[in-house]
């Protein structure tokens, strides 16, 4: 697309952009943003997408924008509606980048009723408590199946909790097949051309967004997709990035692939280690050999020093058990181990089996510290951590075997079977 054509876009004016009959984008562009929520790089900026739906009996505003962009949002809103026409404000997600203009919108449209999910009132309270005078809008909390009539057309609500906050929901305009999907299917990409078919390739932005925002909630993404797929939406209108209207099903299928449950197969144990003098590496080998004796458990070992964190995260996400080995240097596990352990918050590891091991010279605190981190991640530690002073002896190698075997056994014979477990067993 020629540069001049690229400029014929929302960045050049402050007017609403039609996305379907009676449906407008009234969001804001933030091309200069370089970091989002501390954790995401946004080298292409972002958009805060808000929408307006007009029916015979009034207007609904769906989501707002970050507070600093309120003026742009109101200018776009005013280009297609008067404040007195607004009957409803729907908030699919109350995080401040989508609710920042809410207090002012409530002041300008005091007659409007607020529609939020049943999990959202406490968050709304947190957002409005410091606003003076405090707005007290008429409030309706909704659940899946509830709808809001605008006359000849209806907005239908679908609760999709934890994608990626407790309050998240989607709103569906059936007559045009437009799904206002909140942060689902979103990405950080600021392009005033607004629509996927005008922008071209941006899958990496979608994947990056998913990896940092949705991935820890893969289970909830699957549940949300189960609600959304049967609707066969013709337009996906997320709160960040392009509006998706060219074969939208491919975005749903892409999300299905990203959130896919690891394939059924033998239980997997992945062992990660780093070693200064080869002793912790020797322990890792012996643990792997011991684990390999358990029936049907697939075991792999990985040297943290030479591997890539992203690939390790994929392995850990797909594993049923993981073990981390580190030497102790200056009373701590070494930095590459912490780098990997700190990355685990971006995937769902809750409930997986885990263990820690390592060789040490003086004191061996690394193992306890790793175990604390694993417990903090809500992983289960069926076998106490294994600490060996310097070079493992034959007996100590046997202890490594036993450690590996017990960890692997916990996958095939322990918690995970159908029997009733005792609380003491799940450590």
């Amino acid at each position, binding site marked *: 697309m020629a540069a001049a054509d690229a400029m014929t876009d929302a960045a050049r004016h402050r007017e609403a952009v039609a996305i379907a009959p009676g449906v407008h984008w009234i969001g804001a562009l933030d091309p200069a943003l370089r970091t989002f929520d501390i954790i995401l790089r946004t080298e292409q900026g972002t958009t805060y997408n808000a929408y307006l739906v007009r029916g015979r009996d009034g207007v609904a505003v769906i989501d707002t924008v970050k507070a600093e962009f309120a003026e742009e949002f109101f200018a776009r809103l005013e280009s297609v509606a008067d404040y007195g026409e607004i009957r409803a404000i729907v908030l699919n997600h109350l995080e401040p980048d989508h609710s920042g203009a809410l207090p002012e919108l409530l002041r300008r449209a005091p007659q409007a009723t607020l529609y939020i999910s*049943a*999990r959202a*009132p*406490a968050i709304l*309270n947190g957002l409005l408590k410091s606003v003076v005078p405090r707005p007290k809008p008429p409030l309706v*909390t909704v659940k899946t199946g509830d709808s809001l009539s605008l006359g000849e057309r209806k907005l239908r609500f679908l609760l999709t909790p*934890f994608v990626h906050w*407790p309050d998240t929901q989607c709103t569906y305009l059936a007559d045009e097949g437009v799904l206002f999907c909140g942060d689902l299917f979103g990405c950080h990409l600021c392009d005033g051309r607004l629509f996927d078919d005008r922008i071209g390739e941006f899958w990496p932005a979608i994947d990056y967004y998913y990896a940092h925002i949705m991935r820890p909630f893969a*289970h909830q993404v699957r549940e949300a997709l189960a609600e959304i797929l049967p609707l066969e939406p013709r337009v996906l209108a997320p709160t960040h990035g392009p509006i998706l209207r060219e074969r939208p099903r491919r975005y749903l299928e892409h999300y299905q692939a990203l959130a896919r449950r690891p394939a059924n197969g033998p239980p997997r144990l992945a062992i990660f280690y780093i070693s200064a003098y080869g002793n912790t590496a020797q322990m890792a080998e012996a643990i792997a050999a011991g684990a390999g004796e358990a029936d049907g458990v697939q075991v792999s070992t990985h040297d943290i020093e030479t591997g890539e964190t992203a690939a390790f995260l994929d392995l850990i996400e797909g594993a049923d058990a993981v073990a981390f080995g580190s030497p102790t240097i200056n009373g701590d596990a070494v930095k590459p181990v912490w780098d990997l352990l700190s990355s685990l918050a971006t995937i769902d590891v*809750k*409930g*997986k089996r885990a263990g820690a091991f390592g060789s040490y010279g003086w004191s061996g605190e690394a193992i306890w510290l790793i175990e604390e981190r694993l417990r903090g991640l*809500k992983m*289960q530690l069926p076998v106490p951590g294994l600490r060996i002073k310097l070079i493992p002896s034959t007996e100590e190698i046997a202890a490594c075997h036993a450690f590996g075997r017990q960890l692997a056994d916990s996958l095939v014979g322990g*918690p995970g079977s*159908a029997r*009733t*477990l*005792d*609380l003491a067993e*799940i*450590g």
Partner: protein
Amino acid sequence: MPKANITFDDIGKTVSVPAGTRVIEVSERIGAGILYGCREGDCGTCMMQVLEGRDNLTEPSVLEEKVLRENMANGHDRLACQAQIIGDCRIRPA
């Protein structure tokens, strides 16, 4: 010590626990799908749906009642960080 069974419907696991154990203590260890925020009965993140054995959980405190009300909970919902197990029950994330 009296024991009770709690079943986590989302992962199909049943755990036998000493009576008085809070649901959070079990669900975190077994890897059930309830998510947690403050763990102090304030944020409402850990709301769960009690499918069976509602009377086999301790009565909600005034604080829990308030948080449940704020989150528009229905009569089957409780906070996993507050409810203590005193008899057999079956739950799932709300």
